């Protein structure tokens, strides 16, 4: 279209250009009118720009922190999927900004490749491959104290449901017991005999076998299949991106987890930034709180700016501040001062807290402007 040529002349952000283009193509104005519209849009854009010197960090922190008081503390609630409990509200927001390595309710949303996504049975198949199936789910396990052995009676029905063969089961059990015991198979019943004549060893083996994962991914406790629009989507309790990505049938380009640290480890820092933004937005939105994305983006950018995920707090962004005085004023006052002395650190007093402490104007907003008027000189 000819409108592209007009838009090209203006350095507007892509999203704005897109919107103007759509609007123009809908109404099809003449070229000079279109030019006028784009020009006015550009003027409006320029007048909406943020002003230099603005304390965007503080505004972002306030914009996210202030609604915090209005959030619920209720930890558990269902988000979309009634069957799953997910941490929401303030505790979840804190979790995101703290970059917890083990979030309280890890959860994955797994989308499937086209050939699996349409068919419920096919989706079930993938779900079986993902959901952790313990030995106790597909077999009856008993301890025979007299024989010092453990009998495992596989439940055919349950195994069929899970699409698990006896051979696979045997392999898994063999792998699990290793050298400590031997496996005997009689009429489709497995008997595990402990080599060492010890009650403790027997019971330990028993416990181990009960929890043995014979199929699926250990971390994923539950999988729920839901139809969303045209396709079936899997929701999981528990998360393990690396392992799920390898599962056949999973479209890993559209598969996500709510464990931000895991995303950082598996997909890298840019993905982690996006994940922080998405998780924070959805947490706030779920509570019905309106917060501009730019604030959340800024927080996410600060957390990821140096290529590593840093938490908001003592062990992250605030703790790695260059200024000794700022660190001392935040937390662990005495340690920070002592360490600084030993290292011979210098505080260059560029930040806010430092300058407040020593009583100088801060280099922000109106304090950042340097103008000198020469008295008595007229232009």
């Amino acid at each position, binding site marked *: 279209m000819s409108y592209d040529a007009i838009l090209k002349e203006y350095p507007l952000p892509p999203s*704005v250009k897109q919107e103007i283009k759509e609007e123009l193509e809908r109404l099809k104005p003449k070229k000079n009118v279109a030019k006028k519209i784009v020009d006015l849009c550009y003027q409006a854009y320029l007048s*909406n720009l943020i002003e230099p010197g603005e304390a965007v960090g503080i505004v972002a922190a306030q914009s996210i922190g202030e609604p915090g008081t209005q959030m619920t503390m209720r930890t558990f609630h269902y988000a979309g999927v009634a069957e799953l409990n997910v941490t929401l509200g303030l505790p979840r927001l804190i979790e995101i900004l703290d970059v917890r390595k083990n979030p309280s309710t890890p959860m994955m949303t797994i989308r499937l490749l086209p050939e699996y996504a349409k068919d419920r049975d096919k989706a079930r198949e993938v779900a079986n491959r993902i959901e952790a199936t313990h030995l106790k789910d597909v077999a009856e396990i008993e301890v025979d104290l007299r024989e010092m052995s453990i009998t495992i009676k596989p439940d055919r029905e349950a195994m069929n449901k899970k699409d698990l063969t006896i051979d696979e089961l045997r392999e898994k059990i063999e792998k699990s017991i290793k050298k400590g015991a031997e496996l005997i198979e009689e009429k489709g019943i497995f008997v595990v005999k402990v080599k060492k004549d010890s009650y403790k060893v027997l019971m330990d083996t028993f416990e181990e076998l009960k929890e043995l994962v014979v199929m699926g991914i250990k971390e994923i406790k539950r999988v729920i299949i839901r139809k969303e629009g045209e396709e079936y989507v899997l929701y999981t309790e528990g998360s393990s991106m690396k392992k799920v990505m390898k599962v056949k049938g999973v479209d890993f380009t559209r598969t996500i987890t709510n464990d931000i640290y895991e995303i950082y480890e598996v997909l890298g820092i840019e993905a982690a930034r996006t994940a922080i933004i998405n998780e924070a937005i959805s947490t706030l939105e779920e509570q019905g709180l309106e917060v501009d994305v730019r604030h959340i983006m800024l927080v996410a950018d600060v957390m990821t700016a140096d290529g590593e995920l840093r938490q908001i*707090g003592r062990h992250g962004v605030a703790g790695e501040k260059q200024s000794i005085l700022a660190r001392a004023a935040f937390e662990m006052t005495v340690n920070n001062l002592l360490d600084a002395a*030993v290292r011979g650190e210098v505080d*260059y007093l560029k930040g806010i807290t430092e300058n407040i402490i020593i009583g100088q104007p801060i280099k922000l907003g*109106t304090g950042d402007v340097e103008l000198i008027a020469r008295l008595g000189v007229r232009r």
Partner: protein
Amino acid sequence: MYPKRISAIKFEVLSPQEMRRMSVAKLNNPETYDDDGFPVEGGLMDTRLGVIDPGLKCKTCGGKYGECPGHFGHIELAAPVIHVGYAKIIARLLSGTCRECGRILMKDDRRDKFIREIERLKALGQSYEDVLKEIFRITKAAKKCPHCGAEQLEIKFEKPTSFYEVIDPETKEEQKLTPKDVRERLEKIPNDDLPAFGLDPKSVRPEWFVLTVLPVPPVTVRPSIILETGQRSEDDLTHKLVDIIRINQRFLENRDTGAPQQILEDLWELLQYHITTYFDNEVSGIPPARHRSGRPLKTLAQRLKGKDGRFRGSLSGKRVNFSARTVISPDPCISICEVGVPEEVAKELSVPIFVTPNNLDFAREFLRRRESPKASYVIRPDGKRIRVIDSNREEIAEKLEPGWVVERELMDGDVVLFNRQPSLHRMSIMAHYVRVLPYKTFRLNPAVCPPYNADFDGDEMNLHVPQSLEAQAEAKILMAVQEHVLSPRFGGPIIGGIHDHITGLYLLTRGEKKFSKEEAMDFLRAVDLSEIPAKEEYTGKEIFSFILPKISIRFKAEICQGCAVCKEEKCENDAFVVIEDGKLLKGTIDEKAVGAFKGIVIDEIMRKFGAAVTRKFIDDMTKLAIRVITRLGFTIGIDDEDIPKEAVQQIEETISEAEKRAEELIKAYREGNLEPMPGRSVEETLEMRIMQELGKARDRAGKIAGRYLGMDNSAVIMAVSGARGSMLNLTQMAACIGQQSVRGERLTRGYAYTHRTTSHFKPMDLGAKAKGFVRSSYKSGLSPIEFFFHAAGGREGLVDTAVRTSQSGYLQRRMINALQDLKVEYDGTVREQTSGVIVQFKYGEDGVDPMKSFRGKALDVKRIVKEVMGVKE
């Protein structure tokens, strides 16, 4: 004059020489005052250290109390003592260096590699703590010194300040290292090895971690207070220092008289204890030193630490003059940008007038006045302050000349900052113009309550008077209330009508109500209008249009019921608002139009006409609304929730039915016929289904009640227009309160073995009543058991709020701390100021200010298109 700036502060460790050099007196007398109450020479109150008694003069600088800043003294320690704060580093150094030659237990090339790595990380501004840990791990493991070949022994560090050497790895026999031994070893460590331990050889020598001299802070740092009884009460630090000197002297005496080794060692330990607690009285592993009353002493670390410590309590946040605080109360007659200040407060607070040839007469006038606002002080160019009293008014007025400063009382039109804690966002401190009013409370327009989150149930607010012209200008331009109508959080209005404003306008604009000329004039009396078209009758919509600036906008009102297909202009409910060219043609004005947080109309005016017009609109709108509601009258009472008998009957039936269904579910569950939901246990399924069932019952009861209450009911009007309350509140008042819950579940608690909530039910009863379903309404009243359940549910709410405020407060503090140094540079990038790290190349990816953004978008494309192409939808 160009203000001086401190460019940097370097932190280093004090050397013994430095401590002696900065000392003005060697102290060795544990006494503080003699019998005459005069400071003892060589004691801790020695007048060479400065003075705190008004009558005395400092022997060092000759300054009097208030002039002399105080001077350091020192104590020569009889035996070296470990500094607690550095004990951990000492432990690292001892296990990392050779016990014979003092070299690092590592080959030079390897050491240099590590040092280079540290330098690299330092230059990048990253943490090198991990490298130090690695070096510590390697050197600790070394058995032999690679430099002199001496065998190494394991060093054991026992918190807080003891070190042992394991002389025999077999028997684990240990030998204590005295601070003297430690110091000797540390002395041997060469400077070149220090960077590998994270020490900067230019600022520190490791042996300085073992003290031989103790600096004594000036008396001004630890002033004693004189109690009413005339007794002196010494500062905690002085107490601790007395202990130190006493033990130090005792140690010396004992050593000189040749006391047994054991006694000397005990004294040495004691000296170590006192000095340790002098630095930090909360060290783990030793009991804190206590005051005679049993209160732990507040020593150096305690003074710095924590919320009320030096850093957070005295340096980052300070107490200020020129401020006032009192209770707030509403005044709808003043503008949103004004604040009513009590006369008493106005008389106390002052604003400086910097006298120039241009305002000399203006300033003089205040000096001559005998009534407020009058001048209270003048400051001469030599800094002398003169109080203006009636007897010297004229005299000073005569003498007044440019260069003087007149401090006058606060008066109408002065700009002040107004604040309510907690100051969670920048709208918590805004600039208002003063209106001096009678009585004793600060008055504010109720429309500015939302940004402050204020109400009038006893809230107090603070007021600050800017004391320089720059500050006043900044307050007026940047902090004025009208500049904060839009919130930077989401780019929408945060100031707007509340409660009665919304009800009032709803009553005025709903439908085609007609008002006589007299009524219309009465409504508009408080509004500043020059002219309105002469008519005998006006509709409510016309009256509202008089105060509306020329905007054009169409939107659905709050009362919109969300029909499947919107009939727009033809809405029977009058819920589609059409404003064209400043004329309200269709629709009802309610919360969506003018409310705080929502106010589409306010948003539009702000964008089109700016702050001043918006301010005037909000002022007019609130005044109009208040007059309307006053004239038309609006009340609610307990009988507003009365519903007819048949409604009560219906509600009863609905609830009974739901309870029956719950019973059926329970029966199915007991018989094992309840099908579990996927991924849930049968019990969970039962609970969820019952909750659903009972929830539905309450909603249905509410609907029935709502039907009978009708749209003329005052409570309903408030709920639908968004003024106050919700339909749920009404349901609970008129029909049924519903299920009480704790942690999202029905009430289940009770003694575990009883399996019931209270003894009024059979054990294991899972029915609606037994688990906290309240079927009564607030109006009909609750049964005792229901009341108990309601209280249980209510308490959770209270606990929740209490926990939440502290948690979200800490979260906000952490966020502010992490993000405070970010600012937008002239090139549009966002950078961290201390490190210069670029955080964003363009703020928010498009460089747009969220406050000016259009609902998150960079700009309102549609409006521009519409404006250029003409109105065409």
